[in-house]
């Protein structure tokens, strides 16, 4: 077989593309995934990292809510090492409509979401950080999910099953035969290498960039790029997810994740040309702090680590140029049926929470086109690393007396942590903030398609802690330089990485963040000589 021929090509390395590749690979298809940047660089990695129960959508979008709770239960089983079971609260504050709670609880129950009304005093005992002025609370099965880990685990599983992944590769055009797409022209963004790949079915899973991919194929999809800004706080003030019990609005979710917590979001339509450079404005920062502090008052005095924004791939219904009838549901387009273009599918809309279901729908359609008759098994097959539920048990089985760094590694890699070396050199820490060891970096470079420091960060959490790369970025750059044998590239990469970190720091640059920034900028310039 020619190494450039596949059964299906998937465009997009976010969670939808990764999930689709895994599903296709599990049904025996030869798969290729192409991503223009790195895994999880779009909306996948730019959200609350929240395992929604669906409660947020129960009143406004009952169908999405029901999908959410079903997928919530499935992910707890198949992606245990990416998930923390925290539960969530929907709190009513004095300024909120007191009658909304009853509507909300009723809608949750209809969608199949456990929603338990508890009294405010009990809510404060369960979650001491919550605004003590709350007048009502409902407990729901929300949780936390690490989207980078989830995305990497899906892709890793596809690779274990023979799938191929090309990162930092642009699709520059499609190859047509009559009224069918049969392949793609590509160009590697790092090396400039141009390669053509062929497959009878091509899946567009490029999120908000799917608009551009479809345009390359001569197909029009109306999308509605909606920017959402978020803030990451340097400490985890809350154990449970805290939501406002009202119609979804700005900055009404505070989600915990690992050692931090995230408040968001806003929602603003942006033009397509701004997709590659989404900046957070001072007004958005101020709004997020003010509204966030209503959920948990201590946020007002907690150090902010970063500001960031993502773009939701919302889709307008066909023939609605105004973009008013926006759906947050799953959109799976068969372009043969819709536009008379064979061999092309777009899977978009949806949410991080429903990626698996999106992948299932897209893969069902792929299989139908290829005449393959195999059922979907992704709902019952654990992802690599998720075979055990408790990371502490995993760490214990691997190391007997695991260090905190080894426990951290087990929490990130699950059972895959058994691959890490535990000699002196391997256990040395590269990143003290997040306790990432030399061998964990080696493992990522070896198995998880790492080209740049930013790629490495998404897979290991290097540079995500309070120092924001001040110390660990140089160390990790040294390791990448050795692994790839290209120091010049590593030095440029280090510069890009620090610029990318700074981009998320300066919108919230005051207090300890500014203090850390002064230190880092002085050291890189005057001490290290970058």
């Amino acid at each position, binding site marked *: 077989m020619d190494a450039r021929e596949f059964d299906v090509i998937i465009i997009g390395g976010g969670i939808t593309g990764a999930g689709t590749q895994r599903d296709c690979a599990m049904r025996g298809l030869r798969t290729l995934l192409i991503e223009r940047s790195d895994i999880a660089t779009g909306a996948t990695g730019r959200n609350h990292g929240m395992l929604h129960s669906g409660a947020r959508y129960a009143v406004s979008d009952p169908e999405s809510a029901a999908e959410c709770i079903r997928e919530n239960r499935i992910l707890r089983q198949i992606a245990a090492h990416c998930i923390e079971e925290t539960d969530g609260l929907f709190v009513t504050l004095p300024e909120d409509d007191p009658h909304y709670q009853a509507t909300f609880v009723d809608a949750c129950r209809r969608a199949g979401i456990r929603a338990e009304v508890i009294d405010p005093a009990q809510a404060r005992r369960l979650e001491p950080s919550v605004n003590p002025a709350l007048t009502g609370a409902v407990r729901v099965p929300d949780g936390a999910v690490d989207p980078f880990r989830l995305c990497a685990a899906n892709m890793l599983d596809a690779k274990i099953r023979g799938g191929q992944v090309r990162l930092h590769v642009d699709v520059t055009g499609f190859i047509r035969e009559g009224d069918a797409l049969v392949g793609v022209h590509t160009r590697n963004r790092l090396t400039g290498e141009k390669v053509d790949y062929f497959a009878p079915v091509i899946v567009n899973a490029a999120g908000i960039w799917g608009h551009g991919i479809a345009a390359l194929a001569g197909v029009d999809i109306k999308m509605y790029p909606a920017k959402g800004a978020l803030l990451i706080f340097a400490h985890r003030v809350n154990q449970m997810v805290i939501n406002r019990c009202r119609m979804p609005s700005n900055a009404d979710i505070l989600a915990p994740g690992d050692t931090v917590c995230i408040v968001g979001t806003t929602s603003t339509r942006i033009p397509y040309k701004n997709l590659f450079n989404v900046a957070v404005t001072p007004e958005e920062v101020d709004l997020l702090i003010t509204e966030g502090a209503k959920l948990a008052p201590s946020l007002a005095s907690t150090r902010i680590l970063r500001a960031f924004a993502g773009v939701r791939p919302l889709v307008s219904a066909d023939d609605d140029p105004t973009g008013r009838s926006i759906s947050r549901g799953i959109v799976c387009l068969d372009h043969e049926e819709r536009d008379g273009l064979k061999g092309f599918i777009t899977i978009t809309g949806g949410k991080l929470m429903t990626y698996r279901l999106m992948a299932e729908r897209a893969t069902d359609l792929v299989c139908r086109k290829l005449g393959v008759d195999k059922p979907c098994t992704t709902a019952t097959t654990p992802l690599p690393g998720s075979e055990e539920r408790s990371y502490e048990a995993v760490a214990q089985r691997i190391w007997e007396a695991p260090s905190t760094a080894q426990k951290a590694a087990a929490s990130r890699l699950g059972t895959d942590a058994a691959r890490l070396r535990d000699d002196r050199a391997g256990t*040395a820490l590269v990143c003290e903030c997040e306790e990432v060891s030399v061998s964990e970096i080696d493992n990522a470079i070896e198995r998880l398609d790492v080209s740049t420091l930013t790629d490495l960060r998404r897979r290991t959490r290097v540079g995500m802690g309070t120092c924001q790369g001040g110390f660990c970025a140089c*160390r990790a750059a040294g390791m990448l330089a050795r692994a790839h044998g290209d120091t010049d590239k590593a030095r440029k990469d280090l*510069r890009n990485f620090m610029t990318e*970190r700074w981009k998320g720091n*300066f919108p919230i640059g005051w207090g300890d963040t500014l203090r850390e920034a002064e230190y880092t900028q002085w050291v890189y310039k*005057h*001490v290290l000589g970058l």
Partner: protein
Amino acid sequence: MRFDTVIIGGGLAGLTAGISLQEAGRSTAIVSTGQNALHFFSGSFESLEEAPERIVGLFARAGIPLHYSPGVRLMPLGTFRPAALSLDDVSLLDQPKFARKVLIVNFQDYQDFFSSFLADGLRHQGIACRIVTPGHLADPSMRVRAGELRSVQIARTMDKFWEKAVQEIRILLKDEDAVILPQVFGLEDPTIPGRIRAGIPARVIFVGTLPPSVPGTRTQRLLKRRYEALGGTYLAGDKVLQARVEGGRVRNVTTRNLGGHILEADHFILATGGYFSKGLKSNPFRVYEPVFGLDVRQEADRSKWYDADFQAEQPYMAFGVETDAALHPLRDGQPLGNLYAVGSVLGATRPELGSGAGLALRSALAAVDQILSPLDL
């Protein structure tokens, strides 16, 4: 307690001022929180282009040899920067192509010294490089200790075993005419770098590591020791909580550790540093000076504090306390007549005073001169 001068801040600027005043027979106290920029000192005094005998002498009496020779120095990531006045263990080079072939020696598993970046930078200059990381360079106890190998940890071991390291480097050396070593020698004893140079039959260049800086930590210790030997009162780990200002002059300050005792003086020097040392603090609305509430030169609009380019000159770094020409800081537009602001609390750079360590030394000495001048009341 009463002194001639009370200095707030125990970093390079505060210690330089304290030593100079003690040498002139004045009684002083330094209040130091313990965090200062000497812990990430590069070893070179930026923006001191002239050969300042006064500074060289002051440091020599503290047991810190300085040398002056305008040229370039090799930076940890393999680049070159101009440098003139430096600590003895910084090698000042005539030109970037300073050797034909170099041997780069690192400690095994030490990640804070960037041999491959150095080698790459040198190859661009046409210098051939060989990197070695001998497993048995140091004390065996260092080898078995798991986890983190950092500069000060290695330096402590090397204070005992540096002679053994020299022997091993002599064996490793082939036809190279220069040897590059990480700056992890002489944490206590400033003569060790010189003795290592004498012991190796090739030019020895010490290159910086990730902080903490071993030469910077040593400089801090020796300056503090010199200051105390001169009779200065160094209040370590203490912090000024409150200052009393009357009639445009500072009367006294209260610290955390001295309980009810106040520190009174004729003169006060504010040497509290920049953001890192907490001499300048900030909130979403402004940058402020926390001890006296002095006027701070700044942009009112927060979006103008930053340049989106990480490597560009950052506007916030130039913010600092406003002073008159005599370094008396302003409060509500009026100078405080017996207070002097020195070092990074003035901002990272000031015309006439330079930046970084150069700014610290120049401004500290300027304040000292005024305090010692009979015209200063």
